[in-house]
């Protein structure tokens, strides 16, 4: 009996994992499509864990001795997408860790090289996708991206997430909020 129950729980966990997406994957896909010039930066960020990336992206740049000086800042898409996705992931779900092995690995990492688990975006409802879009637009405004570019990025992010939803559900891709049919009841329940 115990063995059966464990088997059921494991299959639930597998089902949950397959419906999630790591936010760095979404960032990579959107950047490749919309801002390929930023791809080298993503290569650089790829060697860092998500928590570190977030700390670095949100840390204020200070004037350092022998720097060129704090002049112009380029309106990059990468920090906008990453920060907005991270906020959304925190709001809509928890950073998913997979079983006891992951917990141990996490502890070990935290103590050894302070790496933490990847931030994962849970499956989202239509309203939640709308919220993600709003978050991207807000963050883009803070990062002084033009409105047109901000909305292109926001749309691409939502499309990428919806595509993921549809791939997982095996149905039609969920249209961005206000642009197409409602997402699947399964997603809405969550």
């Amino acid at each position, binding site marked *: 009996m115990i063995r059966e129950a464990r088997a059921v729980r494991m299959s639930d966990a597998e089902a949950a994992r397959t419906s999630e997406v790591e936010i760095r994957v979404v960032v990579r896909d959107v950047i490749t499509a919309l801002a390929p*010039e930023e791809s080298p930066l993503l290569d*650089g960020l790829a060697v860092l864990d998500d928590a570190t990336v977030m700390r670095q992206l949100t840390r204020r740049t200070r004037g350092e001795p022998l720097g060129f000086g704090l002049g112009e800042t380029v309106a990059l898409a990468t920090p906008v997408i990453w920060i907005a996705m991270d906020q959304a992931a925190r709001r809509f779900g928890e950073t998913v860790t997979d079983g006891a092995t992951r917990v141990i690995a996490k502890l070990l990492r935290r103590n050894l090289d302070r790496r933490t688990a990847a931030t994962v975006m849970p499956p989202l409802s239509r309203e939640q996708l709308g919220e993600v879009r709003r978050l991207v637009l807000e963050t883009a405004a803070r990062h002084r991206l033009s409105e047109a570019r901000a909305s292109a990025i926001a749309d691409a992010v939502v499309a990428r997430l919806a595509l993921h939803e549809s791939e997982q559900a095996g149905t039609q891709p969920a249209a961005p909020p206000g642009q197409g049919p409602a997402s699947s009841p399964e997603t809405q329940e969550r």
Partner: protein
Amino acid sequence: MGAAMAVPAPRTTEKPLVAGTTLRFAVLIVLLLVSSGSMMWIVTADGLTQVPDAYGCLLAAGGDPVQGDAANAAVAAAHNAAYESCQASHNPVPAWWVILVWPLLLVLFSSLVFRLLPRWKARRARLVPLSIVDRDGEIGGELSALAARVGLPATPRVLVAPAKASTSALVFGSNRRPWVCLHGGLLVQRAEDPERFQAVVLHEFAHIRGGDVTLTYVTVALWRVFLAVVLLPFVAWYAANTTASARSPYWHAEEPGIVRQFVFASAMVALVYLARSDVLRSREIYADLAAGRYGASRRYWALADPQAAPGGLARGWNSFTEIWRTHPRWEKRREAFDDPKALFTEGTLPTFLAGAAALLITSQLDSYLGPSVANSPGADDAIALAGAVVVAGIAGLVRWRAVLHALQTDRRVTSGTRTGLSLGVGMTFGALISSQVANLQWLPTQPEYLLLVVLAGTAFAWWTTQCAHLWLSVRRGRTVRWTMAPVVVSSVVVLWGWFAWWQTTGVSLAVNGTGADRWRLVLEQEFPGPSTAHQGILLVIAVVWLNLIWLNHPIAMAALVALCAAPLSAWFVALTAEAYRTVREQFTGILVWEAPRPPLRRLLIAATLGGVVGWIGAVDAMAFMHTWQASNGAQSGLFSLIYLAWVFVGLAAGMIVASAVSVALGDHRFSLVTAVIVTEAAALLGFAGWYVLAAADGCLGPLNTMATQCEWRPGAASGLARQLVGPIQLTAPGMALASVTIAIAFHRATSLGRGPVTYSTMRVTPDMTLVRRIWAGVVVSAVLGAVAANGLILAQNGTSGSKMAAAELGQVLQPGSPSPRLRTRQIGYWYNYGGLDIMTRWNKDFRRLSSALTKAADTGTGQISDTVFPPLCTALLHDTQSAKHYFPVPEPGIESQWASFIAKAQEAGRGCLNSFSKEDGDLFLASMKQFARATDTLGSVEHGINAVIHPGKH
């Protein structure tokens, strides 16, 4: 003036002479090292002796901590030997190695931090290797090409901050192994705008090429270690100590010192940040200009900082915040491309910081090296020299650069007043926060003497500016460095004199005041004679003269020679046609040629006039003293002193005339330097005239002063002259400075005096014929030779005025009547810090003497052994000497008994020893009785003391 140049001015570059920023870094490092030693030495010394015992020796000497610095310094000076010996045994100073251990620790830890800093920085900012971002190696290739363009021996190690969106970069590490960090924003922009990428990288590479990296990060490492190892423990120690001190009966005296330590710690933080940011801002502009030379496009400096300049309060706030930043405003950086003015006119901050650093370095070295090297000759002078190098190297160079830039761009040469005031204020600030002029009180006893520091800073800036202006004018078109070097060396010597004076006489004046009344009393005691009719002149002697006795110091002589030689030797230089500036005359519009220096003739006229007036003044003094000679018929010590004082006043009148004429007739560009030369020359001329009369004293009829018989007496005149020459020579630059200050204060120097000499046709031939050159040489050598020779005479025959003063000071001191509690503490410390020890030793030795006597009596022979008794008497005499060299008892009633004990004991001891040499049995017996009486008296002293410190038992 103010005319436009007919000939276009040469375009200025940023590097016609050294920038001096390396020296500023070095000063910062020295300040941190010295402060580490000094601060931890204080903590260690305080740890060895806790309050209130720290004041034990002062109390034993009859002092009272709450009476302030001057009163206690006088008490300590009055019993100098006893005080020093008491301090040595009861307030031990830390071992000599403590002086070195903290600076060494600082160096050790800093070198460790310096080595680890690049890795730590890269790790903390999560920088990634360039290869991860630059897979095809394109960026790496470009960086190598740029490094080769700049002339770097190898491409630096490059890292990337992928999360940084700014288009910036950064260099750290060391000059030999630099690490460059490129921000993500810069890399993204590179494809779209490769020139921007190049501009930023070239700026960073220029930092490496300019050698900025090691110095910057050595300072960063030193500062962090200083903060952790010195500043925080120092603050923590004083914070913990404050509670203990607050319970001390001397809290009132402790409070200013403790608060000052906190102010000092905060000021150190501010000074280090300001100094480092200030130098870095200069280095940024140098890197910008270098990047421009290597091919960076200037438009990237124009793109940055789009915000409009604010006005009013916001501007003030921005100016304040700017001085803390490591980068200048973009607006300033942009301007520097067109005109590197910012590098030449650096404002008042560097000089303020230089003044503060110089005073902090010298005063701290003085206070913590003082006890260890007090007896080693030249230690004080070496410390003073360090201060001189700091000020001359930073403030002097600031003025040289400002003058050079003004001359190169045909701008008006500013007087240097702002630089000088900031230097003076900086030095004053340093003196105030470092406890140099006040210890047991908030402000020095005579704070007005701090104005002398401000004046000295200002005078130095004026003098340097005018020397620079003069030399750059006469050597126009020639190598600036070689023109500047000898004058900067002279300015170091001048400042050496100032720092040596300030550390000794100046600080003493601020702490104790001139003590005019005390000095006058000393004079009257030293030179007995009828003086009641001459109180005024005695005051002049007391205030002016005796405070100038410091001049017998050899450095003073060197400083005086340098003060005159640096500008005067400019008249040696043969002028080339290039030295004459071509200007369009303001009103007529006609071209004229402007002479680079005023004619020597003008200086000679003013000096001669002053010399003659001074000589007449000296003659007047002789005539006046002749009348006194007739009425008193005696030439006592005081008589000759008053005579010399009147001669001094007479010669001073000549100096006033000389300096005033020099300022009024001279070239306003060089008002101070010419006034100094003229006044010094006038003083020496008048002095020489008086010397001839003094040597012929006795043959002068109504002018006979010291002698009544006619005879040529150069020896006697020299004896008097030695007393006079020092004050005269030191007063001359003071008079010149006063005249120029008055002129500037009331008229502004520019509207006073004449302008430069102009010619309507160009003088193609140099103006210095051989005859003129010889003539100039003779005059210059005569003045300098006279100054040097007189100084030398003085140095060899120096009077010991200061020592005399210290010894006499205590005798004329009028102690107040202390409270019973204070009296109890004073007597308690007197007893415990030496009195009890002396009494115990005496009683023990006396018991040995008594038992020897008893033994001799018991043998029945009545034989007094000359092997037994003389050593016993010597031991008692030795105890008496200890008592004599100890402090008097700080209670008049007991002190009279103590003095009586000493007198009796001395008499007994001498009598005992004499009785053996004379083989006089009666004398021996008398001495034994006297020993017994002395012991009785000592018993009364002990009883009296116990009655005061243990009142309940009596």
